[in-house]
């Protein structure tokens, strides 16, 4: 989770930021499954919520990558300091 947070805050490439967000999703999933396994071993609610999170992360990655492709088509760059369409 900490490594993903560091990556989101420091990567210049927008795809690098998306990859770090996926790392944070995975950290949360590991946490959920571990809590399910060690504290409530007769229930599967942690794994079900982790399954929902996998699906949500997939949907978010799809939309994010479509946005990245649209930005690249217009601005011809993937570095966040060059995204200047909203700068005054």
């Amino acid at each position, binding site marked *: 989770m900490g490594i993903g947070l560091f990556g989101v*805050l420091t990567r*210049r490439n927008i795809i*690098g930021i998306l990859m770090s967000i996926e790392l944070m999703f995975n950290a949360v*999933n590991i946490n959920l499954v571990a809590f399910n*396994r060690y504290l409530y*071993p007769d229930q599967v609610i942690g794994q079900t919520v982790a399954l929902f999170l996998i699906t949500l992360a*997939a*949907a978010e990655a*799809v939309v994010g990558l479509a946005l990245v*492709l649209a930005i690249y088509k217009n601005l011809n760059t993937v570095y966040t300091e060059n995204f200047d369409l909203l700068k005054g």
Partner: protein
Amino acid sequence: MLECIVFYGLAAAVLGSALGVVILRNVLHSALFLGLALACTGGIFALCGSDFLFVSQILVYVGGIALLILFVVLLSGRSKDLQSRQINDQWLAALVVAGTTVALLYRSLSVFSNAFARTEPAAATLPIGRLLLTDYLVPFELVSLLLLAALMGAVWFTRSKT
């Protein structure tokens, strides 16, 4: 004993690949290390006894998301990008923020470290399916609606303006 060896090996692989994702200059190498991190996370799921989650992690994350990221990296890269610096100027503040978050998470989660149940995990596919179709039917249908919306959004954003 074997479980400890496997867990520490997989955990080291996940942490090493995650560091490779956020530090390397070559974006293609970062994407490949992301695939490795996701596969090793699936291994940790299998170690916790969640067989269905392990399989769906490999199928969806490694076979879907990591592949998609690889496609976008290959479609939008230039050869001079492979050696340019990928960490921006706020890395020290980011290190402080990330370190504080990890320390706080460790403090808040280590309260539970003496309540472990030492039982063997059961196969989880049937109970997950039963939960999805009885108690969690509404979130199940809503997630399928969300996937439809995400698909339509992706198609809309990448259409050509003809």
